[in-house]
């Protein structure tokens, strides 16, 4: 009977391995997923926000210049200062969040262009000729603001593309986390089906037949004639019961 126990134990060990490994793989993939998800949601949210703040800062500076040119020095200077401060803080944040070298190059270009702009934005209140000169504003200032805005727009698009790629990667990872589980469910069902077949075929059916034979022995006094297939344990059991029956018959009728 030790062999029988071993066979059933081995079957359950195999099933446990199947499920445990699926579990380990799913946990491993889920951890990767968790990490990617954090990167995507938290880090990228900050970067996207900083890029939109960068755009707002440029617009503030542009409006400040226009106010100065229309004669409202105090409000204009205030707006330029706040725009510049917002630009510096959002630039630092964006620099921390960007991931690709293309994005870094683009951000460097923005810093350079913004530096050039800063050199000339004092001119309207230092030079009386420039005051109210909208042609000067259009050529020297507005065109530079437009270029910087275009660069910020490009870097935002680049980042969106990066986000899309990251999201696709997360999608692939989530599939990799789920699939071992789904496959192992089907594999376990198949395994259980085959195990059920073996237990029925090798143990349940012969034992039921032994039981039926024993019942018929009670009425008909016959020796059991059951095939136990190749199952040695059941062959031994049938042999033992047959020996017992023979002994019983001999006891009841010594002449037999």
């Amino acid at each position: 009977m030790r062999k029988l126990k071993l066979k059933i134990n081995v079957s359950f060990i195999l099933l446990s391995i199947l499920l445990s490994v699926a579990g380990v793989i799913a946990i491993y993939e889920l951890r990767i997923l968790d990490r990617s998800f954090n990167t995507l949601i938290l880090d990228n949210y900050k970067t996207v926000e900083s890029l939109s703040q960068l755009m707002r800062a440029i617009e503030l500076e542009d409006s400040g210049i226009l106010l100065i040119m229309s004669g409202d020095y105090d409000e204009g200077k205030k707006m330029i200062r706040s725009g510049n401060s917002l630009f510096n803080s959002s630039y630092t944040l964006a620099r921390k969040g960007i991931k690709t070298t293309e994005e870094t190059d683009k951000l460097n270009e923005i810093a350079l262009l913004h530096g050039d702009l800063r050199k000339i934005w004092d001119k309207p209140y230092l030079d009386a000729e420039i005051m109210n000169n909208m042609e000067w504003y259009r050529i020297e200032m507005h065109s530079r603001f437009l270029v910087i805005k275009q660069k910020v727009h490009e870097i935002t698009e680049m980042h969106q593309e990066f986000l899309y790629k990251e999201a696709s990667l997360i999608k692939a990872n989530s599939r990799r986390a789920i699939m071992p589980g789904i496959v192992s469910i089907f594999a376990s069902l198949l395994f259980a089906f085959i195990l059920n077949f073996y237990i029925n075929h090798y143990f349940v059916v012969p034992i039921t037949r032994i039981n039926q034979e024993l019942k018929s022995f009670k009425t008909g006094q016959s020796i059991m004639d059951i095939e136990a297939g190749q199952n040695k344990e059941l062959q031994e059991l049938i042999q033992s019961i047959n020996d017992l029956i023979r002994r019983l018959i001999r006891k009841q009728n010594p002449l037999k």
Partner: protein
Amino acid sequence: MRFEVIFKHLGIVLLFNAIFLFLAALISIYLKETSALALSYSALICFIFSVFPLVFSDKSTPIEFTEGLFIVVFGWLVTCLSGALPYIMWGGEFSIINAWFESVSGFTTTGSTILTEIESLPKGILFWRSSTQWIGGLGIIIFVLAILPKTSSSSIYNAEVSSITKMNFPFNNKKLLQALILVYVGLTLAQSVSLTFAGMSLYDAINHSFTTISTGGFSTKNNSIAWYQNLWIELIIVVFMVLSALHFGLIYGTFTRKHNNLFRSDIVRALLFIWLASTLIIAGKLTWEGSYSFWSALRHALFQVTSLGSNTGFATVDTVQWPFFTQLLLLYLMFQTGMSGSTSGGLKFDRIFIFFKIVQKQIRSLQHPRGIFTIKISGQRIDEKLEQQTMVFLLLYIFIFSASSFILSLMNIDGMTAFSASITAISNCGPGFGEVGSMGNFAGVPDLGKFVLTINMLLGRLEVMNVLALFVLRR
């Protein structure tokens, strides 16, 4: 029917998959690829399902014919299902139907693919993809037969190895199996070494050898062999494609100087003559059309004729751009396939050869009504039963690919694509024409169409009758 016997043998079939999946997993682990876990877990599942039935296994007993049939048909199905596991778990372009398509296409050595970006796949997955063709090339059942004792294998042998294969090799079952496996492994090794010397990387050389000798045609490059632009590589592949389409028993006979060898076979002579003539006709047509210079046309024609004629499916050019006449000729070559006893799937040229002999016999019977005529091939008399089997097979084959062309065209697939996809699937060739040309893929075929094509591939590989015997005649 004893299911315990069937489970045990299906388990042995899965053991081969487990071994190759394990090798692919090792490659992925070494290269730190994303497919490492998918391949490892698939290997584990195959291993568990192969070992499990052995725990309860009885000592080997003779297998009945129906059981043998069941083992062969279900052996292929189980193999294809388990082969799709790493694809399903890895993801990428592999949806469930795509994974099934790629797996069936691999094991049946068809070589059609749904992948649009082959080179972006992990190397482990690509190795597994090539391995499926190598395992399927000789027929996974043949490998199983080689390790089974003779008493328990004869029924499986009769179900797997057709009478037309035995016709060319009049030795006992075990001898034929030994010859097939020896030639298969020998050719794979020889080609791997040759391709490495010709400038291919070892990894690519092994992968391409796996898929050449099995006449599968999966490549590790998007542009197949055209990627290399190397005449020597093309010539080596041509030589091995030709060898792989000939009866392995005859190749064995040639090397061991047996009476039955390549030089004495009428079928080999006829097949090589048709290929040579087709190469010259296509090269002539391409030169005449001004598409290529003569030598360039000859180079491409030779490669495409041997590739599609042997049902391998590699490509050096996009044949969809070729004149319609050449496409039709290539379609016919796909249809006639290579010899029985080779790794070519589908109809097998032997049957076409016998068909023409039957036609010749019928004409002679009409001319001499009282005469008794027999068919002889390579000096050997052909049994009338085999003649009858050949005709039935031929008609069934035509009926099946016509029916599947019809089903595909119902899905709004254009005529040329539907027709060539059906032929290429049932012939286990790979590329077709139209949307599914040699530089294209099957990604655009609707899911139901992909499923129909996989049925065609399996029918082509199992030589139709086995499947019908199991599913139809038993009722």
